[in-house]
């Protein structure tokens, strides 16, 4: 086709490959296909949105009426008009107090080791692959692990500490991977400057690498926590009680969390009609918490965006 670009004198003698009349005849069909495809993709996008809107409508129309201060602060009761979710809220908060510190220490520690200390080699890529695989293990499997180790072997029972540790293991890969990415994003010339002045590795990590990557790390931790808040399966597996009235006051107490409360009320709604609405109201609370946490993560990320 190069010939076309040459000067006109030559053009007349060259064989023409492009038949403009033919091209134009097919143009309409091509443009039509282009438009059809565009709307198909738009429809795919809208599908998810419509489902979400429908879900939201369902939940809010069902649950908003039940949402009140009393509902948030009352203890669990079999009488719908007296029942509240303070127990589940307290349990969720307790769970976070275990999951947060445990994943931070283990997750950031692992990430620092892998990025800063470990020699890149077969062992390194073996660990790396396994952490990635760990993120794909179904949560119920973590629940069985927690049941075997924390509940039975350590004898914690279905307590906050057992649930918290199980949940911490579940979300650990999220924190590790997010922290690794944040640490890797710190430019190597900053480390070199620090090493160049005789700083040790740990001094460099503490004074240069962590301050520069803390935003990314915290974002990862918050996202991990919001995943832990919504998980139900591992807690079902470790056998936390279906209905529990007392509010937990120490890490060895039995407990329940918001998604568990939703689960049991939904199941029992065949017995008591109001339970369905109470489950919906609890979902609203859970969604509000998740929305808040994700907003905080976004704010942190934007505020501490790379300044180097």
């Amino acid at each position: 086709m190069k010939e076309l670009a040459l000067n006109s004198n030559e053009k007349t003698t060259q064989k023409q490959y492009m038949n403009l009349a033919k091209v134009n005849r097919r143009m309409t069909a091509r443009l039509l296909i282009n438009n059809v495809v565009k709307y198909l993709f738009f429809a795919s996008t809208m599908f998810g949105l419509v489902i979400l809107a429908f879900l939201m409508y369902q939940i809010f129309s069902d649950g908003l009426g039940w949402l009140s201060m009393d509902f948030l602060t009352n203890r669990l009761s079999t009488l719908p008009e007296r029942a509240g979710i303070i127990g589940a809220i307290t349990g969720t908060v307790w769970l976070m107090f275990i999951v947060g510190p445990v994943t931070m220490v283990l997750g950031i520690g692992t990430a620092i080791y892998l990025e800063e200390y470990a020699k890149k080699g077969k062992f390194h890529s073996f660990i790396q692959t396994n952490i990635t695989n760990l993120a794909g293990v179904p949560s119920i499997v973590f629940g069985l692990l927690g049941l075997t180790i924390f509940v039975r072997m350590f004898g914690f029972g279905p307590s906050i500490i057992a649930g918290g540790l199980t949940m911490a293991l579940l979300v650990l890969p999220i924190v590790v991977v997010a922290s690794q990415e944040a640490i890797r994003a710190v430019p190597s010339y900053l480390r070199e400057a620090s090493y160049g002045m005789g700083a040790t590795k740990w001094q460099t990590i503490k004074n240069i690498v962590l301050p520069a990557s803390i935003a990314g790390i915290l974002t990862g931790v918050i996202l991990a926590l919001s995943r832990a808040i919504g998980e139900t399966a591992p807690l079902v597996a470790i056998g936390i009680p279906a209905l529990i009235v007392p509010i937990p006051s120490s890490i060895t107490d039995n407990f329940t969390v918001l998604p568990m409360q939703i689960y049991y009320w939904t199941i029992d709604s065949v017995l008591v009609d109001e339970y369905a609405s109470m489950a919906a109201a609890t979902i609203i609370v859970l969604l509000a918490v998740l929305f808040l946490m994700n907003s905080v993560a976004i704010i942190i990320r934007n505020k501490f965006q790379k300044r180097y």
Partner: protein
Amino acid sequence: MSSLSMSTEVPVKKETKDHVNKSVVYDTKNLNLWYGDNHALKNINLPMHENEVTAIIGPSGCGKSTYIKTLNRMVELVQDVSISGEILYRDKNIFDKNYRVEELRTRVGMVFQKPNPFPKSIFDNIAYGPRIHGIKDKKILKEIVEKSLRGAAIWDEVKDRLQENAYGLSGGQQQRLCIARCLAIEPDVLLMDEPTSALDPKSTLKVEELIKELKENYSIIIVTHNMQQAARISDKTAFFLNGEVIEYDDTDIIFSTPSDKRTEDYITGRFG
């Protein structure tokens, strides 16, 4: 005056007369370095002297940056590096098993190609070195910061904005800040890896003037792409080519009557 020339097989080392009284800071003996299978430095032998500016010149990929990074063992940060031979810093082999690399780097400051201040205030940038070495007293830190910034000829420009982020400075100012940051740990030697290659001509001139002043108190080893710069500021010049030292001598000899044809070709701009 005799020149110092060598081949891969038979290294010949001859000292020029005026070195008799100056003590050797760095002495490199039969240094070889490989990146994996790539033989990047071949049998380097170089003595470097106190209170002199030693320039290392050569075309891209000749190993000059690798060599200067070997002097403070920064090159080991790269994966898969193997080294043979010796580098004596003040008569001690820096590759000795018991040699503490942090100790070496405390005595040998390094200025990098691209200015690399920390994302901290100007004050904290300078105080970083002293702090990691255990100086906590605010009054002493203040004195060190002023002394170092004066030493790097940047005090007057930044004295009113010490608490501002160092990223607000211009490129040339950032590079002088990095030099000041090195001075803060009172080093013996300054290694400079193409310190002006990212700077405009005016800032380059300022840094060059600074190097000439610093020579009084420090031994300086500078890698440069710019031959005029080497001629302007250095006392000794080493010409590297394909990982070998082709010629090492007084700068005026290298630039007037080099003994190796390849040196002459490079200096007169026939390649590189």
